[in-house]
């Protein structure tokens, strides 16, 4: 396609690709971090669905008396738990459910009914309460009310870790937004600066009778190409960096950190960054040229 512009050959023309490249590089890293963290959190969320389990040991002894005593303890534990902040609801697992749980191991029958089995309480936390609820406090309150009762605390800790992760994810997202905004500003200014050099060319084309559209189209096309060049360059440079970080994460994995990975959808999102930057360069060039032309008689 014919072009009357030297934009691709010119010295100042490097400004736009380099700036777009650097900004896209940063944006891709920040976005990849945020997306990967999001994936990790998603994994964790499957483990911690906002529920805890409390155990109440049975009152020793056989027969109806100890059963009633145990029931009392369970009711007490449930009351204490319900009073805790961050707890949405507490459900006592019925005896039948417990039986069903142990049946595969010890079968059914009268004897089993009399076995001193611990009783379980299903605690549902209020959404987002994991960070606010103090797991130690919850466990302690339960222990004080009902001797021997326990809460599976590690899940609570995992929940708090997850909330921290969520905060980090939000931070990452904020970085992506800031970097994207900075990219937009940088691309806009670089494109405008490059165009300022070409004002005489724009004037000549205008005086020769070129339609505004003819002139704007050429500048827009060249800005798009330069934006793509810089954007894809920055994207490519970000890949080895991401691979390096991924490798480090794999080494500490050991079950603590779920494997860090990006889905195809994530990659599509990352790819939008260089494309968006190039599109922005194109749009800026177009608008700048049209505005310049509008000032010419």
């Amino acid at each position, binding site marked *: 396609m014919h072009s009357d512009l*030297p934009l691709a050959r010119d010295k100042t023309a490097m400004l736009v690709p380099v700036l777009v490249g650097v900004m896209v590089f940063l944006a891709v890293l920040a976005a990849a971090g945020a997306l990967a963290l999001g994936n990790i959190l998603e994994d964790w969320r499957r483990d911690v669905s906002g529920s805890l389990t409390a155990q109440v040991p049975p009152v020793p002894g056989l027969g109806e008396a100890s059963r009633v005593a145990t029931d009392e303890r369970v009711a007490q534990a449930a009351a204490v738990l319900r009073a805790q902040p961050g707890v949405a609801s507490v459900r006592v697992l019925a005896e039948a459910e417990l039986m069903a749980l142990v049946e595969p191991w010890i079968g059914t029958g009268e004897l089993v009914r009399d076995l001193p089995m611990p009783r379980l309480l299903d605690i549902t936390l209020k959404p987002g309460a994991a960070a606010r609820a103090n797991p130690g406090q919850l466990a302690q309150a339960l222990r004080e009310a009902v001797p021997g009762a326990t809460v599976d605390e590690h899940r609570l800790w995992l929940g708090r870790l997850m909330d921290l992760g969520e905060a980090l994810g939000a931070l990452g997202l904020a970085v992506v937004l800031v970097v994207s905004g900075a990219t937009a500003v940088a691309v806009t200014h670089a494109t405008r600066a490059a165009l300022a050099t070409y004002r*005489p*060319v724009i*004037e000549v084309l205008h*005086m*020769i*009778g*070129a339609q505004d559209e*003819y002139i704007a189209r050429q500048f827009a096309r060249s800005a798009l190409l330069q934006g793509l060049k810089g954007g894809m360059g920055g994207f490519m440079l970000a890949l080895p960096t991401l691979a390096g970080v991924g490798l480090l994460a794999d080494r500490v994995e050991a079950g603590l950190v779920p494997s860090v990975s990006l889905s195809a959808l994530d990659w599509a999102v990352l790819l939008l960054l260089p494309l968006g930057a190039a599109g922005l360069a194109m749009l800026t060039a177009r608008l700048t040229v049209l505005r310049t032309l509008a000032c010419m*008689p």
Partner: protein
Amino acid sequence: MSHDTGTRERRDDPEGQSVVRFDHVGLRYDLGPEVFRDIGFTLPRGSFHFLTGGSGAGKSSVLGLCYLALRPTRGGISLFGHDVTRLPRRLLPRLRRRMGVVFQDFRLIDHLSAMDNVALPLRVSGAPEADIRRHVPELLAWVGLADHLNAKPPTLSGGQKQRVAIARAVINRPDLLLADEPTGNVDDRIGMRLLHLFEELNKMGTTVLIATHNEQLVQRFPYGRLHLDAGRLTWHGVGDPPPDRATAVPPRPRQS
């Protein structure tokens, strides 16, 4: 279009008989003094005029008004029968394409070869590339630049640049040719050759207006003359300016 009727009768302005018409035109730059005031003249189709006057008299400004780079502060200008002050902006490119302009400072595009510079008006109007390849080298050869087709303007001499600028102005066979000092940088022989090029165009119907300092040139050709002095159009006619001639005498059509 109506102005293509070919008759050469002079009237007020029936159907675009005049290619350029100034009516009591005044111009000032920003807040500066008026460069000229109350200028009126008409260039009929197919006419050939010189525009003379001292340096700073306003020759380039008159041409700028003609090629729509400037807007008059006062008065009216019509081009090809259109009142330019009332023409919407989007229609101006169409008018500009009917003109060829040789700028005093050439305004070539430095990064384009001589050939691509000359080809610009054709490309802008969407001419087929094959035509461009054929006509452009031909014209450049005619102005003596056959050996410089691919040279970039910065590597050309002043006179060579001027000829590229002229070639760009005439490549489209414009209806109106506006040339600002088109022979200022070339020797007499080439100057005459360029003038003959303008005459050829004029014979094919192009209306020509040439701003120049070159008194000799004006004397050598029997064409109309507009003389600017102290912001006034002081003379309009053929030959030497008579001592006390009034402003804005109707123009003399060249031929039928």
